[in-house]
C-alpha cells in the first residue's frame, strides 16, 4: 500500500539531487538553534558580499511559540526547512524553481501552481525580502524571496532564497494529513518514531517549564558575550596565515596589505564574526522561548528585538569589512 508513498528522506534526496544539478553545493544544517534556514550563516552572512554563492541544505528550525503539544497534525515547534540560495539570482530562477516541483513529484502540468505576492521581514535580523509564497492547489509549499537586506545592509548582488517545508510537501504528495500518524521518514521508521519525543517534551519545556528568570539572565550574558567577542581584537599572523588574538605587530600599512590578501583569498575579515553571530543566535532563540512562555510583554518585545538586531547587524558589518577593498575598487 505504501509503495508509491514519498518518504521524508526520499523527498530531501530529490531536492538535493535537483539543486545539486543546478550547481548548488549541498551543505549540512547549522548546529545552533535557529528559527529558520535563513539564520544559518550560509544564508545570513553569505547573502552579503559580492561573490557568487549557490548552496542548498536542510535546516531544523525551532519556533517555540508554534508548538501545539503535538495536537495539531501539521504544526510543530521544531520542524525542517529546505533552503536554497542562489547568488546572484539567475534570470531563469523561477523556471528552475518550477523544475524542482516536477523533480520532487508534482506534475506541474496537472496542478495549479501560483506565485502569490508575499514579502518577508525578520526585524530581529534586520532582514527583508520581496517575493512570493508559492501555492500548489491552494497550499503554500514554498517561500520564494529576493533577498534585499540583511543586518540592515543592502544585498548587492541580490540572491534568490527558496524555502520549502518538506514535511508538508510529503503530506501533500501522499494526500496525507498528519506528521504524527501518516508521515514516514523512510520505509521503516516513521517521522513520529524519529521526532515525537523531542517535540512533545520541548513543548512542555517551552510553554510550562522553562525558567524565565534564568533565560532572561542568559539573554543578557549571551548578548554581552557577543559584543565582547566582536570587539576582541584579532589579526592575521603573517607566518602561519591564521588569526591570532591581540594587536598586530605589523605596521599599519603592512597589516592592511595582509588583511587585503586574506580577504582576496576568501579567508574572511580580521574579526570573530562567526562566534559573535552564534551568540546572537543564542539570544534570538532564548527570546523565542521567553516569548512562547508569555514572559515578554508587547513593549519589552520591541526592545528585545532591537537588541538582537543590534548584535546581528554588528556582526554583519564586521563581516562586510573583508569586501571593503573589493567594493572600493568597483565603485
Amino acid at each position, binding site marked *: 500500500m505504501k509503495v508509491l508513498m514519498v518518504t521524508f528522506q526520499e523527498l530531501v534526496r530529490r531536492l538535493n539531487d535537483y539543486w545539486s544539478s543546478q550547481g548548488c553545493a549541498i551543505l549540512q544544517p547549522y548546529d545552533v538553534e535557529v528559527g529558520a534556514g535563513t539564520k544559518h550563516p550560509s544564508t545570513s552572512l553569505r547573502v552579503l558580499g559580492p561573490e557568487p554563492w549557490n548552496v542548498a541544505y536542510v535546516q531544523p528550525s525551532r519556533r517555540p511559540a508554534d508548538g501545539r503539544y503535538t*495536537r*495539531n*497534525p*501539521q*504544526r510543530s515547534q521544531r520542524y525542517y526547512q529546505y533552503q536554497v540560495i542562489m547568488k*546572484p*539570482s*539567475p*534570470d531563469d530562477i*523561477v523556471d528552475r524553481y*518550477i523544475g524542482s516541483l516536477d523533480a520532487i513529484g508534482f*506534475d*506541474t*502540468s*496537472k*496542478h*495549479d*501552481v*501560483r*506565485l*502569490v*505576492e508575499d*514579502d518577508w521581514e525578520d526585524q530581529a535580523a534586520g532582514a527583508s525580502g*520581496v*517575493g*512570493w509564497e508559492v501555492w*500548489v*492547489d*491552494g*497550499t503554500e509549499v514554498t517561500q520564494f524571496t*529576493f533577498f*534585499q537586506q540583511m543586518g540592515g545592509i543592502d544585498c*548587492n*548582488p*541580490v540572491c*534568490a532564497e527558496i524555502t520549502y517545508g518538506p514535511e508538508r510537501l510529503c503530506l*501533500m504528495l501522499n*494526500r496525507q*494529513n498528519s506528521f504524527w500518524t501518516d508521515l514516514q521518514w523512510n520505509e521503516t521508521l516513521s517521522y513520529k518514531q524519529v521526532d515525537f519525543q523531542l517535540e512533545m517534551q520541548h513543548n512542555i519545556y517551552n510553554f510550562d517549564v522553562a525558567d524565565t528568570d534564568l533565560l532572561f539572565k542568559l539573554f543578557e550574558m549571551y548578548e554581552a558575550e557577543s559584543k565582547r567577542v566582536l570587539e576582541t581584537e584579532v589579526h592575521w599572523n603573517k607566518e602561519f596565515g591564521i588569526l591570532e588574538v591581540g594587536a598586530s605587530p605589523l605596521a599599519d600599512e603592512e597589516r592592511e596589505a595582509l588583511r587585503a590578501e586574506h580577504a582576496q583569498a576568501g579567508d574572511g575579515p580580521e574579526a570573530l564574526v562567526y562566534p559573535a553571530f552564534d551568540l546572537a543566535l543564542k539570544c534570538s532563540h532564548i527570546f523565542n522561548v521567553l516569548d512562547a512562555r508569555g514572559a515578554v*510583554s*508587547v*513593549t*519589552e518585545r*520591541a526592545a528585545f528585538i532591537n537588541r538582537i538586531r543590534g548584535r546581528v547587524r554588528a556582526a554583519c558589518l564586521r563581516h562586510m569589512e573583508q569586501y571593503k577593498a573589493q567594493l572600493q575598487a568597483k565603485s
Partner: protein
Amino acid sequence: MSHLLLELGCEELPASFVRRSFRQLHDEVVSRLEAENLACVSSGCMGTPRRLIVWADGIPARQPDSTKTQRGPGLKAAYDAEGNPTKALEGFCRSQGVEVADLTQEGDYVWVNKHVPGRPAQEVLGEILEASIRALTFDKSMRWGESRMRFARPIRWILAAYDGAVVDFSVETVQAGLMSRGHRFYSPGQFEATTKDSLIDQLRAAKVEPDPEERAARIVEGAHGVADGKPDIQDSLLDENVFLTEWPTAILGSFSDQFMDLPEAVLVTAMAKHEKFFPVRDASGKLTPHFVSIRNAGQDDDVRGGNEWVLNARFNDAKFFFDEDRKRSLDDFLAQTSRMTFQEKLGSVRNRADRIAKLAGALSASIEGVDRAKAEKAGLYAKADLSTGLVNELPALQGKVGAEYAAREGFDPSICEALGYQYDLGLCVPADSESKQLGLCLLLADQIDKLAGYLGIGQIPSGSSDPFALRRAVTLLIESSQEIGLETGFWPLIEKAQQLYAEQNVNLDQAQIRKGLVDLASGRYPVLWKNYRYDVLEAAMTTDAETMLDPLAIKFRVEAMAKLATDSNLLQTISRPINIVNAAVGKGIDVGADDFSLVPEGCLDSAEGATLLREARKLGTVRSAEEWFNGAKILADPINKFFDATMIMVEDASVRTARLSLLNALRAWFEIAGNVSKIVVEGS
C-alpha cells in the same frame, strides 16, 4: 499603419499592482509621445500578472522640424563699446553652431533661433519606451540579480514593435524584441507579434486572456456555472482572482459537513481570505459545504483534490480550537484575560475590560439610541475573546469570535453585533442602527482607553514607528466622532479614561496625553481631509488644544476657511480689523473688549461704526461654515464703509478704544472659524 505595441513581461506581479501598473505605463508612454511631438490618435492598455500591454495608433513617422530659441549673453557682454562682438559672444556662437549674423536682439539679450530637424519616430520611441518603463512606481519595489534597477518583480522580456519592426532599446539586461510568451504552464512557448490584434489573438490561443474585464466575466460565469447554489462573489475577491490568473477556470469543491457548525466568519475567512475561494450559499443565504476555486492551471481532479485537502487542513485546525473553546463560557474567557498583559504599566486585559465598560457607559449618554446597561455589558466582554483558542489561532477574527460566542450564550443581539463591529467601522454593516450606535460607542471607548494609556506612559509614535497603531486610533476617533456627532470633542472622554486608570492605581501624565493627542490629531486631519488646501488646513488648525481634539469644530473651521479662501475680496476686508487690532496689541495699546455687546456704542462717534455694530449684533450663534461665511459677507460692506469714513487711531482715548473694541470683537468673531492670516491669497 503607425502602430506601436509594447508588452512588458514580468515574473508574477502582485495582484494589487497590475491594473495600476498597466495604466501608469500607458499614461507614461502617451504623455512622452506628446512631449516629443509624436502624439498618438488613440491608445489603450491591459494586463495580467505576467504582462503589461500598451498600444498606440496614429503616431507620426517622424517628429516635425522645430525651431528652438535660446537666450545668449546680455547685450553689454556681447558687444564692446564699438559694437563689435566680444569673445563671449563668439564663444556662444561656436557652442550653438551659428554665425553672429544669425542672432537676433530682444530686450537686453541676444537670442538664437535654431532649426531642429525632427527625428524618426522609430529612433525616439526606444528612448520613450525605456523611460516609460523606468518611470513606473510601485508601493513596494525590489532589485534582483546584479541589476541596480528597482521594479515590482523581475522583468523577463520586452516586446516592442513599431510599424512591424522592433523598437531598439533595452532595460538592464533585457533587450526588446518581437517575441511574446504564452501561459506559464499551459503554453509556455514563444511567438512573434507586432500588432495589438495579433498579440491578443495569439495570447488567447496560448491560453492567456489579456483583458481583465474578460477574465472577470469568465470567472463570474464559470463560478455560477459550476456552483449548485449562489457563489458569494465579493468585488475585492473577484478582482484579486482576476489578477492572480491568466486563464481562469472555475472548479467546484466540497468540504465535510462536520465543519458546518464552525462560526461562519471562520469558514468564510479560511475560504475567501486564505484560499481566495468563493463560498457558495443556498437560496436563503446560508453557507453550503461547497466552494468555487478559480484555478490558473492544472487538471480538474488534481486541483480540486488539492484545494479540498488544504481547506480540510485549515478547518481541522479551527475546529480543534473551536471545540476546546466550547467547553468554556465567555465568563471563563473574561476571567482568563486577567492573566493577559495589556501593557506592563497599564495592567491586564481584564483591568482594561472594567475601564472600557465604564467608559462605554459614560459615553452612552452622548450617543443617540445607546442603552447604558448594554453599553457597559458590551464593554465588559469586548476583549474576552482574546483569550479564546480560536482568536489565538486566527487573530484576524477578534471581535467576530466574541460576537459568535456571545450569541451562543444568548446575549442581546445588538451587543453581539457591536462586539463584532468594534475594531473597524467598515468591517461589517450591522443589521440595525441600535447595533451600529452601540458598536461606535464601544469602538470609541476602546480607542480612548488605548490612547490615554499609551500616551500617558510616554509611548508616543515617532517617524515610522507606531507599534500600537495610535495614529490609526486617532483616525478612528475622528471618524467616529463625526459619525455620531460628538459635540464635546474627545478631551472630556480622555479625562474620564484617565480617571478610570487612576481608580486602578495607574497614574498617567495628563500633559503628555494632551500634547501627544494634539500632535497626532494635527497629523491626522490633513490626511483625512486631503482635498483641502494646506493653508486652509493650517488656518483651521491654528487653535487651542480643546478645539484640536474636537473633530466637529475642526471640520467647521476647515469648511469655513475653504470658503473664505475662494473669496479674496472678503479675505482682504476681514483681514483689516484683524491686522489693526494685532498691531495695536503689539504696541501695548488698549483694544477694549472683544464682544459686540460690550463695545461702548456711545463712544464710537461714527455713523458707519454704529451701523457696523448694529449689523454685527444681529449675527446669531454660528452653527455651520455656511452661516459663518454668510455672516462675514453681510459684515463686509459695513466694514469697508467704516474704514473709508473713519480714522481708528484718533487722539481721544475713549473714542479710539471704542473703535478698537469694535474691531477686536470682529476679530474674535472671525477667528471662531480659523486663523485668517494663514490663508494664502491666490496669485499673490
